[in-house]
C-alpha cells in the first residue's frame, strides 16, 4: 500500500514537474504572426521574412508574416492592440510609424506597445546626381545660398522621416530649401536622375546599383565601411545629426507576460548575433544593432517629441480653426451640418415625389445630391491648414467649382423640358430586397463568419430569383465554399473572417 502511495506521489510530482517544464519550453504552441504594415515586397516586409527565416534556426516556433497595409501602419497597430497580449502576435515597426502616430494624434499606440527590440538602423543620407554641377555637400550649401530658398530637395511624403531629417539638416546647416514630396522614394529618385532637383534624402542602400547617384553626406557618428569616401555631417561641421537614423524593430503588445518577453529577448539577441543575418544587411550599408526594451522606449519617446516639434512647424498637426467656415467644418458642427443636409435632401425628395415631376425623381435628385455633396466638401475644405502656395484645399475646390455649375446646368435642363424617358425596369422591389439581403449578408459575415453566411446567402439568393432545383443550389453553394476555402484561404492566405460569435464559442 505504501509502495503504491509512494509511486503514485512520485509519478504525480513527475507529472506536474513535467507539465511545468513543458509549459516553459513550449511557449509557442501555435504559429507566431508577424504583422507587417506594408504590402509584400517592401523593405520592412523583407525584414520580417528574413527574420522569420533566421529565427527558425534558434527556435521551434513557426513564424507567419501577415501583411496589413493601410494608413501608414495605423491599421496594423490597431490590429496588434485588438488581439490579446499573449505573444502570438508581434509587429514589425519602423520609425515612420512614430511620425504617423504623431500626425494622426494616436499617442495611445505609443503607450500601448511594448517596444521590445530595435534590430537595425540605417543612417539617413543626402544623395545627389553625379552628373549635375551641384553634387557635393559644399556645392549644395553654396547653391542653396544663391537660390535663397528655391533650391529643390526631392523625397517621399511630407512629414515623414526623410522630410523631417531634411528640415533638421537645413536648420543645423543654416540653409533654406524647398521639399518636393513624391509618392514614394523611388519616384523621387527618378526625378533626381532626371535632374529635376538637387538632392534626395533617404538611406544609403538607395544608391546601390546606379552609377549616377552618389552620397553627399551621411548622418551618424562614423563613416560607413561600405562607403569609406562619404563624409559624415559631423566632419562637415554640422552637429546634432548623429542620431538621424531610420530604425526598424519588433514590438509586442504591452502586458505580455515577462516569461514570454524573456523568450523573445533571447530570440531577438540570437538573431542579432547570427552571422547570416548580419552579413545580409551589412552589405547594404545597414547597421545591425540590438537595443532592448528600455533603450528602445527612450528612443521612441525622443522621436515622438522631435516629430511633434517639426510636424507642428510645418503645419500638419495642431491647427486651430480660424474662421467661421473652418469652425463649422470641425467636430460636432460638422456632424450637425451633414445631418442637416441629409434632412434637406430628403425633404426635397419628398416634395418632388409628390409633385407632377415625380417621373423624374432620379434625374432631379442626382444633380441635387452632387451639389450638396460638393457644398459639404467645400465647407470642410476650410478646415485644412494651408501655408503653402497650393495647399490641400486647392484641387478639391477646383473639382467642386466644375461640378456645381455642371449640375445646375443639368438641373435647369431637366426642369425646363419634358423629355420622354425610356421605360426602365420596374422591378425595383426585388433589387431593394437584394440590397437588404446583401447588407444582412455583410452583418452576418461579421458575426457568423464567411462560410456559414455565404452558404445561406447563395441558397436564399438563388431561391429568391426563382430557381427551384434544390440539389443544384446545394451543390453550387457547397462547391463555391470549397473553392473559396482552397483558393482564397489556403492558397492565397486571405484571412476569411471566422465571425465574432464563432470566435467567442471556441
Amino acid at each position, binding site marked *: 500500500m505504501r509502495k503504491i502511495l509512494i509511486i503514485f506521489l512520485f509519478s504525480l510530482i513527475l507529472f506536474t514537474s513535467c507539465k511545468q517544464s513543458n509549459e516553459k519550453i513550449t511557449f509557442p504552441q501555435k504559429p507566431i504572426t508577424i504583422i507587417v504594415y506594408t504590402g509584400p*515586397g517592401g523593405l520592412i516586409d523583407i525584414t520580417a521574412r528574413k527574420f522569420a527565416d533566421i529565427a527558425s534556426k534558434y527556435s521551434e516556433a513557426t513564424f507567419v508574416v501577415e501583411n496589413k497595409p493601410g494608413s501608414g501602419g*495605423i491599421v496594423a497597430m490597431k490590429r496588434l492592440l485588438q488581439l490579446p497580449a499573449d505573444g502570438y502576435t508581434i509587429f514589425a515597426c519602423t520609425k515612420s510609424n512614430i511620425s504617423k502616430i504623431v500626425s494622426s494624434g494616436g499617442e495611445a499606440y505609443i503607450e500601448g506597445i511594448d517596444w521590445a527590440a530595435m534590430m537595425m538602423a540605417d543612417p539617413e543620407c543626402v544623395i545627389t546626381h553625379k552628373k549635375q554641377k551641384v553634387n557635393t555637400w559644399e556645392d549644395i550649401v553654396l547653391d542653396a545660398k544663391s537660390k535663397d530658398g528655391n533650391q529643390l530637395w526631392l523625397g517621399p511624403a511630407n512629414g515623414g522621416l526623410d522630410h523631417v531629417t531634411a528640415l533638421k539638416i537645413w536648420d543645423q546647416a543654416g540653409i533654406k530649401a*524647398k521639399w*518636393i514630396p513624391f509618392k514614394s522614394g523611388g519616384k523621387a529618385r527618378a526625378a533626381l536622375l532626371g535632374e*529635376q532637383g538637387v538632392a534626395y534624402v533617404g538611406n544609403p542602400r538607395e544608391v546601390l546599383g546606379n552609377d549616377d547617384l552618389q552620397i553627399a553626406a551621411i548622418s551618424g557618428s562614423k563613416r560607413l565601411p561600405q562607403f569609406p569616401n562619404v563624409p559624415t555631417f559631423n566632419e562637415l561641421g554640422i552637429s546634432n545629426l548623429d542620431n538621424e537614423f531610420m530604425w526598424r524593430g519588433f514590438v509586442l503588445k504591452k502586458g505580455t507576460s515577462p516569461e514570454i518577453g524573456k523568450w523573445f529577448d533571447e530570440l531577438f539577441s540570437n538573431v542579432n548575433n547570427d552571422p547570416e543575418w548580419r552579413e545580409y544587411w551589412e552589405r547594404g550599408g545597414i547597421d545591425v544593432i540590438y537595443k532592448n526594451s528600455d533603450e528602445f522606449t527612450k528612443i521612441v519617446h525622443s522621436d515622438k517629441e522631435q516629430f511633434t516639434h517639426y510636424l507642428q512647424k510645418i503645419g500638419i498637426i495642431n491647427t486651430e480653426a480660424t474662421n467661421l467656415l473652418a469652425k463649422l467644418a470641425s467636430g460636432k458642427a460638422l456632424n450637425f451640418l451633414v445631418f442637416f443636409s441629409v434632412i434637406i435632401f430628403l425633404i426635397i425628395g419628398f416634395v418632388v415625389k409628390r409633385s407632377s415631376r415625380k417621373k423624374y425623381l432620379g434625374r432631379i435628385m442626382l444633380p441635387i445630391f452632387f451639389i450638396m455633396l460638393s457644398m459639404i466638401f467645400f465647407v470642410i475644405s476650410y478646415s485644412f491648414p494651408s501655408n503653402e502656395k497650393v495647399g490641400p484645399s486647392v484641387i478639391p475646390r477646383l473639382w467642386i467649382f466644375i461640378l456645381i455649375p455642371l449640375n445646375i446646368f443639368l438641373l435647369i435642363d431637366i426642369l425646363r423640358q419634358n423629355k420622354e424617358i425610356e421605360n426602365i*425596369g420596374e422591378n425595383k422591389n426585388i433589387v431593394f430586397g437584394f440590397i437588404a439581403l446583401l*447588407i444582412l*449578408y455583410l452583418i452576418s459575415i*461579421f458575426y457568423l463568419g464567411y462560410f456559414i453566411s455565404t452558404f445561406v446567402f447563395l441558397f436564399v439568393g438563388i431561391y429568391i430569383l426563382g430557381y427551384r432545383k434544390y440539389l443544384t443550389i446545394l451543390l453550387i453553394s457547397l462547391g463555391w465554399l470549397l473553392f473559396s476555402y482552397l483558393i482564397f484561404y489556403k492558397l492565397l492566405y486571405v484571412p476569411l473572417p471566422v465571425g465574432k460569435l464563432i470566435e467567442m464559442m471556441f
Partner: protein
Amino acid sequence: MEILTNMAQGFEFVLGWQPILYIVLGVIMGILAGAMPGLSPSMGVALLVPFTYAMSPTLALILLVSIYIAANYGGSITAVTINAPGTPSAVVTSFDGYPLTKQNKPGMGLGVSLISSTIGGFIGTIILILFSVQLAKVAVKFHPAEYFALSIFGLTTVATLGGKNWVKAFIAAMFGLLINTVGIDPISGVSRFTFGSVNLYDGFSLIPALIGLFALSEVFKQIDEQNFKTKKIALEKTKWPTIMDYWKLKITIIRSSVLGTLIGIFPGAGATIASFISYDIAKRTSKEPEKFGNGSLEGVAAAEAANSSSVGGALVPLLTLGIPGSASTAVLIGALMIHDLTPGPQLFNNNPEIIYGLFASLLIANIVMLVLGLFGSKLWVKVTAVPKKILYPMIFTISIIGSFAVRYSFFDIAACLGFGVFGWILRRNNYPVAPIVLGIVLGNIAETNFRRAVMMGDYTIFFTRPVSLVLLILALVSFGWPILRNKIYNRKDIAKLKSR
C-alpha cells in the same frame, strides 16, 4: 549583335523544363487572378512573392512576370463575359466586349482580346529589349507639369466616352476626382474629408469601387430588368473571329501597343490610362466610330493591346533605373531585393543572365498565354451559358470576397456595396460609370503633379514647358471637338427636320 547573343543565352536558360513549368504555372495563376474581380495584377504578384523567396532569383522573376503579363489579359475575360472587369485596366475592354456578349458573340470579344493582348505583349517586350536604356532617359526627364498635362489629356477621353451624354459623363468623372481627394493628402500629409475615420485615411480603394460600379450595379440592373433568360447558344456554333477579322485590326493593335508601351514607361501612369487613351484615339480615327460602345472589335483590340503592352513599358524604369513604374513592378523590386539583387543599370552588367532570361521568358510567356487562352476561351464562353438565376448571386459573393481580399477590411465590402447601389442609380438615369473609375485613377496623378509642379516653379510652368503645352492643347482640342461636333450635327438635324 550583342543583343542577339545575349538573347540567345537568355533563351538557352529559359528553354529548360523547369523555367517553362514556372511560366506555365505563372500564366495560369495570372489568368485566374486577373479574371477574379478583386485580385489585380499587382495583388496576384504580391500574393506569390513570399513563395518566391525560396526560389532562385531568375526563376522567381520568371514566375512573377508571367503572372503579371497573364493577369493583364485575365482581366478582360470577366469584362467581356459578365461586364465585371477583373482589373482596372480591363474597364475599357468591357465597353465593347460586353455588348458583343449581349449580341450572342462572346467568342468575338474573347478572341480579339486574346490576340490583341498577345501582340501587345510582344510589341511591348520588343520595345523593352531594344530601347529600354534610351527610353529610361526620357522617362526620368518627364516633369510633374507634363504628368499633369498627360492626366488632363487622359481625362478628356470622357468627352468621347460620353457621346451625347457628355455632361453626365463629365459629372461622373468629376465625382470620381472629388472622392479621390478623400484620405491623407499625398502632398502635405493632412487628412481630408475623412470624418475622423481611420478607414478613410487611405481613401476609397480603387478595387472595391470598381467591383461595385461595374459588377454589382450591372447585376442590380439585370435583376431590375428581369433579364433571367439564358440565351441558349450552342457552344459549337459560337462565332470566333476569322483571320480576316484580325487582319482588319492590325493598325489599331500596333498603334495601341506602341502607345501603351510608351505610357507604361512613365512611372505611375500605367495600364489603365494607356487603355483609355488608346481607346479614345481608336474611336477618333475609326471608319466606324458609331460602333464603339456597341461591340466594336476595334474598341476591344485598342484597349487590350494597350494594357498588355504597358507591361513592357513598366519594366523599363524598373530594370534600367531600379524605379517601379507600376504597383506590380514595385512588388517585383522587393522580390529582387530579397535575393540580394539591386535593380538598376548595374544589373545589366553584373547579372546579364537574369535580365536576358527575363526578356526571353516575357516572350515565351506571351506564347504560353496565347496557347492557354485559345483553349481557355472555349471554357470562358461557357460562363455565359450559366443560368442567370445562379450566376447573379454568385457574382455578388465573388464581389464581396474580392473586395475583402484587397486589404482584409469590412469597410471595403461596405464601400463596394455602396458603390454598387450608387452605380445602379446612376445607370438608371443614364450616367456612365466608367468616368468615375477614370477619375479615381487619374485624380491622384493630376493633383500631386499639379501641386508639385507649382511648388517647383509657378503657375506658368504648364505653358512654358513645350511637352506640357502640347499635351494641354491636345487635351483642349480632343475635349472640345466631340462636343462641338455633336452640337453641329444636332443643328444640322434640326435644320433638316425644319426643311422637310
